[in-house]
Structure formats: C-alpha cells, structure tokens
C-alpha cells in the first residue's frame, strides 16, 4: 500500500513536472531500468543513456499512465522500447567487442575463460528476445506487460520466452555453451 501511495505521489509530481521528481524516479526505479537496458544492450554506457531517455519520456508522457500503481511496469516497458531503438540505431556502428565473459587462465592475460555467465548468454539472444527475458525474468513483468512493451501478441511473447529459455538452457549445459552461443541469430 505504501509503495502504491509513493508511486501515486511520484506520478503526481511528474505530471506537475517538478524537477525533484526525477531524483525520486531514478532513486526508485533507476537500477531496474538500467539493468533491463543492460540486458538488452550489453553496454553500460548505452544502458545509462536509456535511463536518461526513459526518465525524459516519463517527464513528458506520464500523463498517459492511467494507473499510477503501474508506474514501474510502464517505465520498464518504455526502457525496453528505448533499448530496442538504440539497438536498431547502432547497427550501422561497429561496437566494441563485449568483454564478457573473461577470466584469467593460468596467468595468461589474453586468455578467455569458459566460465559461464547467464548475462553473457542472454547477450547472445536476438534483441527482442533479450528484452522479453529482461522484462519477464529479471523485472518480473507479466507476459501481457511484456507484450505491450514489445508491440507483440501475448502468444508471440510466450513463444519467444520459451525459445529464449531453450537457448539459455543449452548454453548453461556443460559443453553446450559454444553451441548455444554460436547458434544465436539476429532477426
């Protein structure tokens, strides 16, 4: 109840465009927004940009949010959309290679390790699938909320989540990491 009251108050302050509302917004939801964005983008810098983009969208459009208690889900939906937009925009740019997963191996600094990281495995999924995983499995949004965020039907999202789990399971299985990662494609 308290959190709902807090959300309602925050929504009111955002609607009134009180600058200090942004502090509360980021303090409350900034971490989740950044983590969802990171799961989609696999770039801390880009994830931070998404946090800013999301806060700006909230500033502009929180009036369209009818149920203040849905603020978190709405913000994360917005973050997912911003993340996917950023993925699309970045396709013409050569990104730095992701540095994960890495580890030392017998002191050889250049050696990559084969230790497993789930976040790294998620990074190998197609972008929209990453967004679905981030929203559903990390942020606990419902399938319906994920579908709204991604502009897809509920059944499509369920299918994508199922396929994502299959890929992650393959990647998390010993000796299956390579197959799981090399098989990931970009739609």
């Amino acid at each position, binding site marked *: 109840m308290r959190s709902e009251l807090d959300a309602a108050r925050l929504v009111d302050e955002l609607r009134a465009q009180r600058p200090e509302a942004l502090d509360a917004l980021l303090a409350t939801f900034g971490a989740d927004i950044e983590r969802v964005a*990171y799961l989609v983008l696999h770039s801390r810098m880009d994830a931070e940009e998404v946090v800013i983009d999301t806060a700006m969208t909230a500033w502009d459009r929180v009036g369209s949010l009818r149920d203040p208690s849905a603020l978190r889900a709405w913000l994360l939906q917005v973050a997912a959309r911003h993340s996917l937009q950023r993925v699309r925009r970045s396709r013409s740019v050569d990104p730095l*290679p992701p540095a994960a997963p890495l580890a*030392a191996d017998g002191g050889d600094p250049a050696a990559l*390790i084969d230790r497993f990281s789930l976040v790294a495995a998620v990074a190998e999924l197609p972008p929209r699938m990453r967004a679905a995983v981030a929203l559903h499995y990390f942020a606990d949004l419902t399938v319906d909320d994920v579908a709204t965020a991604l502009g897809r039907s509920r059944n499509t999202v369920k299918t994508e989540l199922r396929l994502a789990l299959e890929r992650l399971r393959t990647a998390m299985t010993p000796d299956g990491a390579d197959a799981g990662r090399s098989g990931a494609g970009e739609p």
Partner: protein
Amino acid sequence: MTSDPDFEARVRRQLRSELSGLTPSVDADAVRARLADRPSLRSAGIRWRSSLPAAERHPATRLLAALVIAGVLVAGTLSAGVLIGLFRSNAPTAPAGQAGPSALASTLPTLQPTPLATPVVPSSCAVTRPDPPFAAPSPYPSQPPGRVWYGTQALWTMLMPNGEVWSGYPIGPGGITQKTFWFSTNWPGTAVEPVPAITVTGTRLDGSGSFTFGPGTNASAEFGEAMLVGIEVPTPGCWQITGHYAGTQLSYVVWIPPAANLQRECQQVDRPGAIDCQVALGLAIAALPLGDHPDLAVFAYGTYCGTTSGCDLSAPANRVDFGLVTFSYADDTHHEYVYVVADRDGRLHLGGTLSASPPPLMSVPTPVP
C-alpha cells in the same frame, strides 16, 4: 518444450545475482540538463522548417536543416541548447529578407525555461552574473528567452541569469563542446559578412589551459542574427571566455563542473596505439588474487574501457578503467572495478582493483575443495 519452473527460477535468481552489482549511475541532473534544452531545440527546428518557402526547400537547404536539427537532437546533452535551438545557421543561399530584423522580431519565442537545479559553483569561480543585464538594441528583444544579454552594443552575448554553468555537454576530440553566440552593432549581418571575423579565446582560471577558435559562422533566431563560434574546452574547471570582434573584447567566466561522463567519452582508441580491451581486461583480472575454485565465475561489464585523466595523451601513463567486474563464488558475489595502466606507447601494465581492500572472495588464495 514443457515449462520448467525450476529452470525459470534459476534464470530469475541468476540474472538478479549477476546484475546486482550494476548499481545506478545516472543522476537526475543529467536528465534535467537535457530536459532544460530540448523543447526549445525541437520546436525551433520545426518553426524554422515550416517558415521556409517551399521553393527554398531545395536539397542543400534541407540537408543543412537536417544537419542542424540532427545535431541538436543527437547532442541532446547540450544544455546550452536553449540558446542553440533558438538559432539556425543561415545558408548563403537563404532568401533575402527571410532573416530580416523586423520579421524576426515579430515572432519572439514563447518558450520558457524549465526551472531546473544547476550544479554547485565553487566560490573560487566567480561566474559572470549580468547585473544589470545589457539592454540590446532593436530589433533584438530587451532580453532573450530564458537568458540575459551581457556586454555592450559593440559586442554582447547571452548568459544564464544566475551564472554561466556548462554541464552535460558532449565531449569532442578537443574537449567539451559548446557553441557561443555573439552580437554586435558593428556586424553587418549574414548577407554582408556570412563568416564573421570573430575569434573566441578561453583561459582556464583555476589551472592551466587555453584555446582559440574562429572565425565564426552565422546563425539566426526568430529575433535576430548572431555570430556563432563553436568551441571545445579542453578540461572542466573555471574558464574565462573572451570574444574578439572588430577591435572589441568581451569576457565572461563560466564554470564547467567535472563531468561524470567525461571519462567514458575517452575511449581506449584515443590512446596512441590501439589498446585491446580484451587483453587489457584479462591483464587486470589476472592481477587479482582470485583463487581458482571450480565454482569461481568471472563476468565483466567491460564496456567502459576508458582512460582516466581526461585522455591526457601527453601523460606518461594513464589508467585504463573498466566497468564492473563480478566475481562470484558459489552463492557469494562480489563486484569490483579493475584497471590496468597503459603507457604513452600503448603498452599495458598490471593494474589491480580500485577497492581499498579486496573482498573476501578475492582473498581466497587456494581452491576450496
């Protein structure tokens, strides 16, 4: 494939664990800085385009417009964009009279600045606060929207009423990028002097550093034309900015707070000789006493890979920082920033962790059965 609640739960748990160390790093000031400018920028671009006669919307003009607007929107962090957005660059082929003073003065922008917090200015930096502001001659408005005039008829500019603070600006090759706008009754205008012979110099007041940029180009808003000089300020700090035009100088002091995002803009590719982030990060991790338990997992959010010291390429060596690296050992997870040192030639040297003391995990020297 059937549902597997156990596996789903594992995915949820592990995602949260691995991401737990990715702490929020964006503060509201960054958002406010962008919000402060954006409405003016966007609407100014729209107004400009819609004001152009159809016959004048030839490709070159459209390209120029696109460049201006794209630059404005892409560089959304330009907090001085409140000003920038009110202006447009004038193509030499702009129709005569389009930027005529009387026509421009009749449609003053109505946008109001958002009342936003600004970074704290140290008392040692006496930023210029125009008091009283300069009253610009006709056809300019008595004061520009959201700003105040500063100077004399021979040379004036626009400043923030409570002191010029430049924060959240994009970082260019030469430093923090900014556009400065200047006005003078001695300037005959775009039609006669489209490339004004104006220069802008900067001198750091709380340290060493200087710059000179010029000549200018031209810009116009709905209320008049301006001489525009793009500058790059090498470092944050307290700076005196001086415009020089037609034998007149005008100076003001600006505070540029150390930007949290300054470092991240300085990528490793700025170092002489490419630094291989993968190798560098591996080197940094190898320097840590991690132990080698079979359950040890290392995951690097290695996206920063940026040099410190503001990419001071003249320094003998820079630290190359990395983003968060997560070390997990069974159910125990720790997060660290790691670094290496790159010398002037791009050679990498062993670094370590930025923590004062290694977390317990890293103190485990030998495998645990």
